[in-house]
């Protein structure tokens, strides 16, 4: 198994003919993902990397039986693309695009169909189940199949930590970048829930940062509902108040949104917390009982 994407994933790339869409479609195909279709309005009938392009999701789904999508369309049109993906039954939708308006995302997040699908992002690196499917812009070669689930609000920080896991021969079941925006589809908790239920996953790494209180909610969930060990890392202890630190959602704007508050919540919940990224792999090895 794995969560969200795997060998059964039949992926459609929304915005396949754009620069980013093209580039990452190539990479996703290369890393073994079953990319069955692309959608770009007006480009129907073309082909890219052997992938047929359609004008609409309706057509793409009808013709190819796609069940998941990744969104590369420009920010102004991303919400529309997500609605389209949800309306045509995608069970997983990954929105990579950065800069999607917050109000657009609130509308998407409150649409009834979202309750029957998992929306990852926006402003996220995507999802990868090493060796099975790569629905992401992440560098697939630093990943290796295994039993650690990773869920993160950050991209490169995830790569950093995954790379160290892989170097220690600790593989990953699935890595999920949930995105750095204030309003994202799926929060930590939903992913933790799926990892808890996934027989392949034995330990979970959670990478948080300043802004919001998703880490606190996740900590409560871990304490009350999870049996699998969780290792966490929080970034942004030195972030000043009121400044956006790269991610639109990474901003200290009150008590709960600070790294200290999140860190304290993790500790209260008895979660192993690393003080720097490299410590994460050590703590995971410990938790798995494989530390040398």
């Amino acid at each position: 198994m794995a969560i969200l994407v795997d060998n059964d994933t039949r992926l459609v790339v929304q915005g396949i003919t754009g620069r980013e869409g093209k580039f990452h479609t190539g990479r996703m195909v290369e890393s073994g993902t079953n990319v069955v279709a692309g959608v770009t309005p007006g480009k129907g009938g073309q082909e890219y990397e052997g992938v047929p392009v359609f004008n609409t999701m309706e057509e793409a789904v009808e013709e190819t039986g796609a069940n998941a999508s990744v969104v590369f369309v420009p920010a102004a049109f991303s919400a529309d693309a997500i609605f389209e993906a949800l309306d045509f039954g995608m069970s997983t939708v990954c929105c990579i695009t950065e800069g999607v308006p917050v109000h657009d995302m609130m509308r998407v997040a409150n649409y009834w169909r979202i309750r029957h699908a998992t929306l990852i992002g926006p402003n996220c690196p995507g999802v990868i189940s090493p060796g099975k499917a790569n629905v992401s812009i992440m560098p697939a070669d630093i990943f290796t199949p295994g039993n650690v689930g990773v869920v993160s609000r950050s991209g490169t920080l995830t790569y950093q930590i995954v790379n160290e896991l892989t170097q220690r021969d600790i593989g990953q079941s699935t890595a999920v970048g949930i995105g750095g925006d204030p309003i994202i589809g799926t929060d930590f908790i939903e992913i933790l829930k799926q990892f808890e239920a996934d027989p392949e996953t034995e330990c979970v790494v959670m990478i948080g940062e300043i802004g919001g209180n998703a880490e606190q909610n996740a900590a409560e969930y871990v304490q009350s509902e999870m049996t699998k060990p969780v290792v966490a890392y929080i970034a942004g202890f030195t972030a000043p108040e009121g400044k956006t630190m790269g991610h639109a959602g990474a901003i200290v704007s009150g008590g709960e949104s600070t790294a200290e508050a999140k860190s304290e919540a993790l500790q209260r919940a008895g979660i192993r917390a690393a003080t720097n990224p490299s410590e994460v792999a050590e703590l995971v090895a410990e938790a798995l009982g494989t530390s040398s």
Partner: protein
Amino acid sequence: MDLYEYQGKELLRQFGIETLEGVVAASPEEAKKAAEQLGGGTVAVKAQVLTGGRGKAGGIKVVKEPAEAEEAAREILGMDIRGHEVRQVLIEAGAEIASEMYLSILVDRTEKKPLILFSTEGGVDIEEVSERNPEAIVRIYIDPLVGLLPYQVRELTFDAGLEGDVAKGVGKVLGNLYKAFTESDASLVEINPLVATEDGRVLALDSKVTVDNSSLFRHSDIADLHDEEAADPEEQRAQEAGLQYVKLDGDVGILGNGAGLVMSTLDVVAQAGGEPANFCDVGGGANADEISEALDIVTANKQVKSVLFNIFGGITRGDEVARGLLSALERSEISLPIVVRLDGTNAEEGREILAENTPENVYTEETMLDAAKKAVELAQDGGR
């Protein structure tokens, strides 16, 4: 993007919310003229800054006549309030205030819905009210697909114990404020205090409006309000270059790729006993132009004594990153010590390339921790 009080009020008025009459002034003379224009009686002279706490800092003065307004403006203009220079004041007419309330709408990240906060305890910090007397705050979530429903307006006024004209007035303001919030793509609209006057009107005495930056493409009128002069010059330059840059107080300049990695780098520098001078995310690529521009911006800050460049090679491989960095260094004339830490795909090859070709002021390290320690050490040694 934050709006000044006077800009926020202009927006509120566009959506039918009443405010006091006011005029913006950039000099004591203008302030005097404004006070005369408002009838020559009592006015408030209010510092226009994109930060809170101006009241406590002496940025608001109530005066009785135009000459006093001029004097007050002279004192307030040029003030530094939490790092923000006061360059304008709002001269505002007085009003007979019967009660002060608090009303805001913000984006609730957990519920993914607009959240309305209301309290009859206005004019004070709402976080304080929230801690001291959480019951005094009415909270109502709005489904963005349904919008604000009449029953929710009633719920707010009943729960807050409002009655008569004030209940009606607050209900009307709320309807208009929700419209302003959604139609302006705001992430926050706050009126504190929202006041009821002796003659039964309900009006906004202050305004705090933050508009979602990602939405500015469809709000050119609001985007035009962006105040370039108020921004730090390096932040302004970084923004133009498409870099994510935040200036801080320390002496270790920091660059890296990816927001999370850079935030983490700042933390690790602090743990090593240093003080980060900035946050700077150069993005995913290894484009020499971008790296060189980022290095220039980071080192333009005269406090910087050493630079830490923390790169994780992902899709862009370590060797390419190394070459991009070298090419950027060749072009710039930075003499400050630069610690490069390169990890990820092809990191070893990248480090080798750097080792063979770098100028004297560039040091390479294998781990973030070692790199941070080195950069802190170099900064403490005095840098340039």
